[in-house]
């Protein structure tokens, strides 16, 4: 408890010095250190919370375009009609209560040289260090014929919110016996098991409500996350409903005709009644605009601190960052947010970061009450994040175990959003 006492003590000193009651000139002179966080999703919100707790004297400003954040995790349950959109809505109010300054505006540039962040409305925010967590940008045109404008008709639903509702609505209104076609993305992308969990959830909905309908996955990959577990679940629960077509059949380049909802592949054409295009991805736009990305569109970082190797003083976490063996997941973004907050708090206090620790876990629902999981612990080795141990739900897990995992998945959702958003 020593640490906590010491911190509370220092907090008290800071407050008195600020109001100038006590003669503590050195403290009063030292203007509060400023951290600006760009993006208040899973990674950014976590970093904000943990910075405040590691060093409450740091002034933390979090900027996000949007007042509402819909978690992508559990959005596949919304698509299946098992939850409503409201249940995956988070806000920044909890962070605000913890003393984080919240600004709703779009960041247009992060200037590492001038150490300031500029927003669309023209505001400027100076920083000592900046943490960038903008998530992903979708490379629409990589699926020929798909454009940003088309997302109102052909949803990607890879950023949760109105897109999630749109896909749910289209599936609900589809004619019985119809075909839902999903184009899966190439690696690396946000949430490796996400498309296949989505296929399970859509298949569940179709099985219950629209007999004779199908989900076809057009995949530019020849293998995918949790493949054995998903394939077994499709066979067991959705035989004849889910069909997966990998790159050996359909190739890696696809084109769509948005008027007829037809997908062209090397194996021929397939006509969809509902089309879900999940395009290739890269780091969020603002990272592209601020020279934080490499030639593949992702942000290289020092994995001990998540400081950009391209722009000193600016850290990148979450989906946008290249984090070695860690996948682009919510749990990973949360874990990275904490490591980054630790490093930033110590660096701003003139200290070396301590040894980091990283974890990822990800639950995927295969039926409304059964889930499978992946878990991995990572370590920093020779400047890289490598997997120390990891593994999946065993292939022979009983229904009872899968139901427990379903319960624990619900529990995971509630705990992680509290850990991120307060």
């Amino acid at each position, binding site marked *: 408890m020593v640490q906590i006492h010491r911190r509370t003590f220092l907090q008290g000193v800071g407050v008195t010095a600020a109001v100038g009651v006590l003669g503590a000139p050195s403290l009063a002179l030292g203007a509060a250190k400023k951290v600006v966080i760009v993006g208040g999703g899973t990674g950014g919100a976590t970093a904000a919370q943990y910075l405040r707790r590691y060093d409450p004297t740091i002034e933390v400003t979090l900027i996000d375009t949007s007042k509402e954040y819909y978690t992508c995790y559990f959005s596949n349950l919304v698509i299946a009609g098992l939850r409503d959109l409201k249940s995956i809505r988070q806000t920044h109010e909890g962070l605000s209560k913890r003393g984080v300054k919240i600004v709703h505006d779009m960041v247009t540039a992060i200037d590492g040289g001038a150490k300031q962040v500029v927003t669309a409305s023209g505001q400027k925010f100076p920083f000592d260090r900046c943490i960038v967590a903008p998530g992903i940008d979708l490379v629409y045109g990589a699926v020929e014929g798909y454009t940003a404008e088309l997302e109102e008709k052909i949803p990607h639903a890879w950023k949760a919110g109105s897109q999630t509702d749109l896909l749910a609505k289209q599936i609900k209104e589809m004619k019985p016996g119809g075909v839902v076609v999903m184009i899966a993305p190439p690696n690396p992308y946000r949430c490796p098991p996400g498309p296949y969990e989505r296929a399970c959830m859509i298949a569940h909905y179709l099985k219950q409500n629209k007999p004779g309908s199908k989900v076809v996955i057009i995949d530019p990959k020849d293998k995918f996350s949790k493949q054995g577990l998903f394939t077994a679940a499709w066979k067991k629960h959705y035989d004849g409903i889910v069909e997966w077509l990998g790159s050996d059949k359909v190739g890696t380049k696809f084109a769509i005709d948005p008027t007829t909802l037809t997908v062209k592949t090397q194996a021929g054409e397939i006509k969809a009644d509902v089309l879900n295009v999940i395009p290739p991805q890269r780091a969020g736009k603002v990272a592209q605009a601020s020279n934080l990305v490499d030639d593949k569109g992702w942000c290289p970082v020092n994995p001990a601190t998540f400081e950009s190797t391209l722009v000193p003083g600016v850290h990148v976490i979450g989906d946008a960052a290249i984090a070695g063996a860690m996948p682009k997941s919510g749990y990973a973004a949360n874990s990275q947010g904490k490591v980054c907050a630790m490093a930033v*708090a110590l660096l701003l206090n003139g200290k070396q970061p301590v040894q980091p*620790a990283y974890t990822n876990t990800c639950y995927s629902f295969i039926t409304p009450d059964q889930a499978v999981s992946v878990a991995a612990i990572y370590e920093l080795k020779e400047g890289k994040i490598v997997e120390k141990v990891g593994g999946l739900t065993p292939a022979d897990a009983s229904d009872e175990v899968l139901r427990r995992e379903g319960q624990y998945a619900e529990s995971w959702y509630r*705990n992680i959003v509290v850990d991120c958003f307060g």
Partner: protein
Amino acid sequence: MKWKIATSGAVLAAALAAAPFAQAVEISYAEVMAHTCAGCHGPNGSSVGPAAPTIAGINPELFIEAMRDYRDGFRAGTIMPRIAKGYSDEEYKLMAEFFAKQPFKRYDQPHDAKLVERGKRLHDRYCEKCHENGGKASAEAGVLAGQWLPYLQYQMEDYLAGKREYKEKNMKNKLTEMLEKEGQEGLKAVLNFYASQK
């Protein structure tokens, strides 16, 4: 444990320049490691439920035993056997110390209020000897009062199915005795009593 950071001297020098009035902020590796568990066990180990257990306030010896048992296959679990393999005995010890210091936060949870009174009586007769103070104490055995009900149910299923070792033979005796006299309904009542505790 030896560990060297990969930040360059220049970076640190810049950091020092930016922070002329450095304060004594301290962060331990134990804390950093323990925070990786929060996504499932809640901030500082107090789970907001509805299923994953709170590990805040846990007796450090029981914590270490639990981690070892998961790692070595003596205790069933859906995901902990995989996670426990990621840490050394020394790291278990560091985390045990961290979690033991955290307060066990209790949240309202769904339970059958009609069973609570009977559950309390049965607890007093069969379980209180080790799970003291109505299951709130952590000195001797696991904290049960305010623990999440699905987790408690799964643990009892695992003990009874031989998938979790009893560390105390007397717990097995008392539990068997209670089940003989009061049946599964009796056990359900005891667990609902724990779930009702705040």
